[in-house]
């Protein structure tokens, strides 16, 4: 059994290191610093850490004002709150002028688990992706999360980074280099291309393993930057396989699947696209794995759906 880690832990440690390298990095939180793991930064750099209390919109607007003076603010809350309560100030004060505020949404998706629908963000990618100037990043494991934390600090504009509290295996070697806007092919195959993001990357690899037993060769592409999308990688796959699939722990409306569909629409002879995710429903309380099972987002069920689509 490989060692499993939650991406939020890798983020907390990377943020601490970033803070020691970059004095212009400031961190804001809204009463969740132990959950979001900004507690490490808080303890090391109290003069650059602001906990605004339970007021996420206030946090995001405050960060915008700080960014306007040359600081690089990282704002933190649950993915649910940081994208929805704050949508208006994110839009007007951050995305519109392109200020380099980094919004980090923790505990994203169904795997938030027991707290239920009020806390399970299944629309956050759609909301953030729709904003001009906003980049959307969703790393797949601890190595990539660490790299992405440094990369988004360097990115000149605003970024939304989606993290989770679901233990996932390490997928990348230490030498892996995350690059904004680049999708990495983790496994090659010519029958189906599976585009996956975040926690679903390891599930897609599980699915590919199962499909291989049936002699179905699946390509697995880690789309860790959902915007700007690596259109070349998507279009290349579209020209080389018989079926496209997207897998995300998010609504099938507006997320990765929509981004892939937008990318291939209008291209002649594009293979069909199977969009796997939550089908326009709210979540509910349950264990993370129970919820993934219910919404057909385990390796086995992803493989089953792909098998059926290939028939």
């Amino acid at each position, binding site marked *: 059994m490989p060692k499993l880690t939650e991406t939020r832990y890798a983020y907390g440690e990377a943020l601490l290191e970033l803070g020691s390298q970059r004095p212009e990095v*400031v961190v804001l939180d809204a009463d969740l610093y132990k959950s979001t793991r900004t507690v490490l930064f808080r303890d090391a750099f109290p*003069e*650059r850490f*602001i906990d*605004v*209390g339970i*007021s996420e*919109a*206030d*946090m*995001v*607007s*405050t*960060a*915008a*004002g*700080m*960014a*306007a*003076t*040359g*600081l690089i*603010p990282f704002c933190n809350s649950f993915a649910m709150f940081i994208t929805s309560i704050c949508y*208006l*100030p994110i839009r*007007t*004060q951050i995305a*519109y*002028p*392109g200020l380099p505020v980094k919004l980090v949404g923790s505990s994203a998706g169904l795997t938030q688990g027991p707290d239920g629908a009020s806390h399970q963000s299944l629309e956050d990618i759609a909301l953030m992706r729709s904003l001009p100037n906003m980049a959307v990043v969703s790393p797949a494991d601890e190595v990539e999360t660490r790299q992405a934390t440094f990369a988004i600090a360097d990115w000149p504009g605003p970024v939304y980074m989606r993290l989770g509290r679901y233990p996932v295996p390490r997928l990348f070697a230490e030498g892996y280099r995350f690059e904004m806007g680049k999708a990495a092919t983790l496994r090659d195959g010519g029958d189906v291309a599976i585009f996956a993001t975040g926690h679903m990357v390891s599930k897609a690899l599980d699915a590919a393993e199962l499909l291989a037993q049936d002699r179905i060769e699946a390509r697995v592409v880690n789309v860790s930057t959902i915007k700007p999308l690596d259109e070349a990688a998507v279009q290349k796959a579209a020209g080389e396989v018989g079926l496209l699939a997207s897998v995300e722990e998010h609504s099938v409306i507006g997320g990765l699947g929509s981004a892939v569909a937008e990318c291939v629409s209008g291209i002649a002879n594009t293979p069909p696209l199977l969009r796997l995710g939550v089908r326009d429903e709210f979540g509910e309380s349950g264990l993370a794995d129970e919820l993934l099972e219910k919404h057909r987002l385990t390796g086995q069920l992803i493989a089953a759906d792909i098998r059926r689509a290939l028939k």
Partner: protein
Amino acid sequence: MTISPDQIAGLRRKAAELRLNIVTMMGSNKTHHFGGSLSAADIVTALYFYKMRYDPHNPGWPERARFLMSKGHSVPAQYAALAMLGVFPLEELATLKQLGSRLQGHPAMHLTPGLEGCTGALGEGLSYANGMALAARIRDLSYNVYCLLGDGELQEGQVWEAAMTAARHCLGNLVAIVDRNGLKAMDETKCGKLLDPLDERWTSFGWAAREIDGHDMAAICNALDWAGEQTQQPAVIIANTVKGKGVSFLEGRPQFHNASLNEEQFACALGEVKATLAMTEGG
């Protein structure tokens, strides 16, 4: 610091000139936010021409005072001040809200030189001003931050989140000014929500508060000086104003919050602000 009568007279002249620029740039037969821009005119004048540490030749100077128009629809008053200071050409005011103009209907910091932030959706500006004030502390800079809010805007809940944040961090370099013209887009401010007693609301949130006549130039300048002395806590100036101030038939009438003037009304308005300017020049 005492302000000389000559200095006050000069500022009143500037305010008259600012109002003339507001009315002129808005013109006739075009929908504009007359009411709130005119009610804020004296406050904006006192900020840019009396109080703020500001170099119009260097609007990016890190140590400059920051002014944020949180009631973004009143940005024509700020455009007028910036143009009068030479941050951009006066002639550009005529492009207000036209396709391709740098002067958008609501503030766009990435387009217009001299603007410190984007506003327009009400209620978000004070938090942003807090961010600029906190950044001064983190970056060891000594600038002050001024944020102009509408009294109607105070009905947005985020304003009070920001008020609590500013007090928690004892932001002595932050000054909020409420342009309390008593009117919103449709109705009197008192419709919809109870705001009074406004000064007590702010003091109970941990702010130093002072109430003034927002069209009395000496009172505005004195209040800004008083606010500068509040170094241990944020300060708010509640400026009682008249919506549409300076054009008699616009004054106190919510229907001119965002409206257009016909040719005749525009000529009338222009005549009034010109007469006021001539009077201040004569005096």
